[in-house]
């Protein structure tokens, strides 16, 4: 299912400049039919610029974007009809009912008559809102609101769905239910692009595009990124006091980065160091730090993010 | 109360006002604009009323009468009409507000009967100026007819006697009867109330709206420190505005100033305490900038322009309205301003309105200090 045989979105060497500022710099990727791609990156990395270009709202400075085989810069209107958009700050009308909200968005996308009735039922089913058609949107609980927003975004049966931080701050149960929905939609052939900087949202994506300073710095499945992108081994060292431990670990030759994490210290070691665990223990013993507990830690997506993005010079923040 | 915290708040407030173009404009431009607008715009005198004439006689005599009108600064002859039918058109199109019709037998009738009739048609759309124009026209004609009588009597060899009873009006305090002199001192009150209440009405509401209040209430700052720190900069700005208004009044409009500056300073300070506390009170209560600013506007401009007596004399209002004006804090300040400017009254002579202002200042400052609670609900 994940084989990107029929690529829905093909982005080639996309570039966008605002004056002398390069917002998107030679970015290429593909999203296959039914795939969920996560755009992960700090604020101002260029995520929203790319999404605006994909939606046909901005013209690229160079490179090409094809959606369903249509060149976005040639025919943005045709592309827009195939796109659904939903964000955490999605604008639902609190004083309209569930059905009225759906109908309103149907109207915007020109869905009418018999088609509207069928789509409405479909959206209500998918969002699990059947039976709540007459409830005011403002009185829905957080998770329901989110699903109504999704229902509105898919009312015109888009081929591509953009989600902007769709589940930040939502309770975990609602979040899981929501992502189940997204996976269902993807299984039905909808290609999904998620823009976020929440790692827990990224975990649900088939592939993750890590974006920083307008550049694509890593692309892979969450597992691939966790295992390979770090280019090192993450160790968890427990001991007391943490400050002294931190200091000593900085002196270990293979150490790339050290940071306190809860009641332990996380140490990132160069992958080259052969038997890291034993070597690290021996080193600490030699430094007079005994009574420590050392084991390998599974790097999180956040570790990957921080290492890869942090390795880049942060000139942009200073400029902006 | 810790002076250090008051100073920190005042300094912050000044910085924010300085960096906010809207506040800055409000503080510095509004006084100038109001002064010019009201100084020139609200002028209850009529001058240069456009007059059309229809001289059906065309004699030396009739022309002498019309020249009298021309000589008066209240009138200006703009057009000589040919036919009676032209009058309505000229008036409809606003070419004139008064039409004088001299009948064809004007001088003959006077010579025969020593009574003449002259028709004056007034555009009374604005009844106030119509009444004034009529009165001025009567005065011009009365002067002319007195002249005519004297000439006639001399001709008949009769001694010329002055009229038995002559009203000799003497105008005090505003000798040249300029309504500008009457209005401009009052504009100071309007400006201070407008600027003072507007600026302070935003200060607390802004903190709520921008989310800075939650942090502020978690600091050791006391409600009193907050009040003083927030109002101090606007007090200074208010005095500055009063200075701007005063300069305009004295230098630009040449309004006489006969009182003592200290009297003005003391009473202006009192008035500022009243309006600033009121703005603060509104701000604490309303918590939204737009809402607070509108309420502040409602509490200042409307009652002050209508009921403070700055332009419309209170003693000419119906009794129930007059009663209401006692509740308008600005009425006392306007009374004081006019007295200080035009009569040169001192504090002793103004004891009553000054005491009323003191009472208002104490009451509002007390309410404002109590209104703010260090809680979020």
């Amino acid at each position, binding site marked *: 299912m994940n084989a990107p045989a029929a690529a829905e979105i093909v982005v080639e060497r996309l570039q966008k400049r605002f004056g002398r500022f390069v917002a998107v710099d030679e970015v290429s990727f593909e999203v296959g039919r039914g795939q969920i791609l996560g755009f992960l990156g700090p604020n101002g990395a260029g995520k929203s610029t790319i999404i605006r270009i994909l939606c046909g709202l901005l013209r690229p400075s160079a490179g090409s974007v094809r959606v369903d085989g249509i060149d976005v810069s040639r025919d943005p209107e045709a592309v827009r009809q195939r796109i659904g958009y939903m964000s955490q700050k999605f604008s639902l009308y609190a004083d309209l009912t569930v059905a009225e909200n759906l109908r309103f968005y149907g109207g915007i996308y020109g869905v009418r008559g018999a088609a509207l009735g069928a789509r409405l039922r479909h959206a209500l089913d998918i969002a699990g809102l059947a039976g709540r058609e007459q409830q005011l949107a403002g009185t829905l609980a957080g998770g329901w609101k989110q699903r109504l927003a999704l229902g509105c975004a898919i009312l015109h049966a888009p081929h591509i769905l953009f989600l902007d931080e769709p589940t930040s701050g939502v309770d975990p149960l609602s979040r899981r239910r929501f992502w189940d929905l997204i996976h269902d939609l993807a299984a039905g052939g909808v290609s999904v692009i998620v823009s976020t900087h929440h790692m827990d949202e990224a975990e649900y994506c088939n592939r993750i595009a890590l974006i920083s300073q307008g550049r694509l710095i890593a692309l892979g499945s969450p597992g691939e990124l966790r295992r390979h992108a770090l280019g090192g081994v993450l160790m968890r060292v427990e001991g007391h006091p943490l400050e002294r431990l931190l200091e000593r670990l900085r002196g270990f030759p293979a150490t790339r980065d050290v940071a306190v994490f809860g009641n332990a210290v996380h140490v990132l070691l160069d992958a080259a160091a052969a038997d890291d665990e034993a070597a690290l223990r021996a080193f600490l013993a030699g430094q007079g730090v005994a009574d420590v507990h050392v084991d390998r830690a599974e790097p999180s997506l956040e570790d990957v993010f921080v290492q890869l993005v942090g390795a880049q010079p942060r000139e942009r923040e200073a400029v902006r | 109360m810790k002076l250090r915290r008051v100073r920190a708040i005042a300094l912050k407030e000044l910085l924010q006002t300085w960096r906010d173009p809207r506040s800055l404009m409000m503080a510095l431009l509004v006084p100038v604009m109001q002064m010019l607008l009201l100084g020139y715009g609200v002028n209850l005198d009529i001058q240069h009323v456009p007059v059309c004439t229809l001289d059906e006689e065309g004699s030396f005599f009739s022309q002498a009468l019309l020249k009298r009108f021309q000589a008066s600064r209240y009138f200006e002859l703009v057009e000589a009409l040919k036919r009676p039918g032209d009058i309505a058109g000229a008036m409809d199109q606003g070419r004139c507000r008064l039409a004088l019709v001299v009948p064809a037998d004007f001088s003959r009738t006077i010579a025969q009967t020593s009574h003449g009739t002259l028709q004056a048609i007034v555009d009374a759309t604005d009844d106030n100026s119509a009444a004034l124009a009529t009165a001025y026209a009567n005065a011009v004609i009365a002067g002319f007819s007195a002249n005519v009588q004297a000439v006639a009597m001399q001709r008949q060899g009769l001694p010329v006697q002055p009229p038995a009873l002559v009203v000799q009006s003497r105008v005090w305090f505003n000798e040249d009867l300029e309504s500008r002199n009457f209005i401009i001192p009052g504009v100071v009150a309007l400006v201070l109330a407008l600027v003072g209440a507007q600026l302070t009405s935003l200060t607390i509401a802004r903190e709520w709206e921008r989310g800075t209040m939650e942090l502020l209430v978690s*600091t050791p700052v006391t409600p009193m420190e907050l009040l003083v720190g927030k109002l101090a900069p606007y007090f200074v700005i208010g005095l500055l505005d009063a200075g701007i208004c005063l300069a305009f009044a004295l230098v630009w409009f040449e309004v006489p100033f006969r009182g003592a500056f200290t009297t003005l300073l003391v009473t202006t300070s009192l008035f500022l305490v009243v309006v600033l506390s009121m703005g603060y009170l509104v701000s604490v209560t309303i918590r939204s900038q737009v809402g607070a600013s509108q309420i502040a506007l409602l509490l200042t401009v409307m009652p002050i322009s209508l009921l403070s007596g700055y332009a419309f004399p209170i003693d000419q209002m119906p009794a129930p309205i007059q009663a209401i004006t006692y509740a308008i804090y600005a009425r006392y300040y306007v009374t004081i301003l006019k007295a200080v400017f035009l009569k040169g009254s001192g504090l002793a002579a103004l004891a009553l309105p000054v005491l009323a202002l003191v009472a208002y200042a104490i009451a509002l400052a007390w309410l404002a200090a109590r209104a703010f609670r260090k*809680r979020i609900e």
Partner: protein
Amino acid sequence: MDAVVRASGLAKRFGGVVAVDGIGFEVSHGEIFGLVGPDGAGKTTLLRMLAGVMAPDAGAASIDGIDVVAAPERLRERISYMPQRFGLYEDLTVDENIRFYAELFEVPPAQRRERAARLLAASAMEPFRRRLAGQLSGGMKQKLGLTCALVHAPRVVLLDEPTTGVDPLSRREFWRILYALRSEGVTLLISTAYLDEAERCDRLALLQDGHLRFCESPAELRARMPGALVEVASTSPREVRAALAPLAGVRSVLLVGDGVHVHVDNAARVPQLEAALSERAIAFDAARVVMPTIEDLFVALLGPGAQAAA
């Protein structure tokens, strides 16, 4: 241990909605205590009551032995509260903001300069001292907020969702400062809606619908996980789910990016899962027991069907 923060039976309602319903806990000296839960769980209300900016309807709380409800003003100098919304003046510069708060807390100028320099250096904010706060990025705003909150050297710091909207890089820097504070003996209460962030706290209060469901360390919480979590990497996750969901001992199957997470009642079920997949000829890379995340725990302990021991 000496409890610095004590709360018992705290309750607050807004109209008909119960925001906080009888919550009590203790926080020890030098601890990072996390208030964790989704939006609307009552985190903000709880922190506001502890900070003495909102009066509780019922219950008692004290910080450093001072009654928060009866004497909030005596509390001010000892605590620092950083509200959820950026509470600084966007039209003042970084330095002006710091100075304003230092003055309100009557910090001597020399001390202020020394502390501001140290805090700004720690948060890589030195080059931005003269920039208007409104022109800072989200992460820098939060770091400025923290700097202002710390300029009077409080003993207890209450932070309401300080890392919301902050990217992971700035978030790490933020936590580095928090850990440095902890090592200086400062007690920290921090609320977060990001469950992954909860791992960084010494102890957690898991909140749901205004109730305190669990209050313990991440490790203790993890030990409560009934059964085990098995990750099955596969390119056909839907088929994996269909095959595994009906099996005995499988509590739930969650689709994630590159496979599924299977919650089983016992780690010993792994061979059974593998057998079921092989039997149906469903391709998969590996099935291995993984550490549950706080989110997994939240769902397992507080989701439907869980015997919430609250």
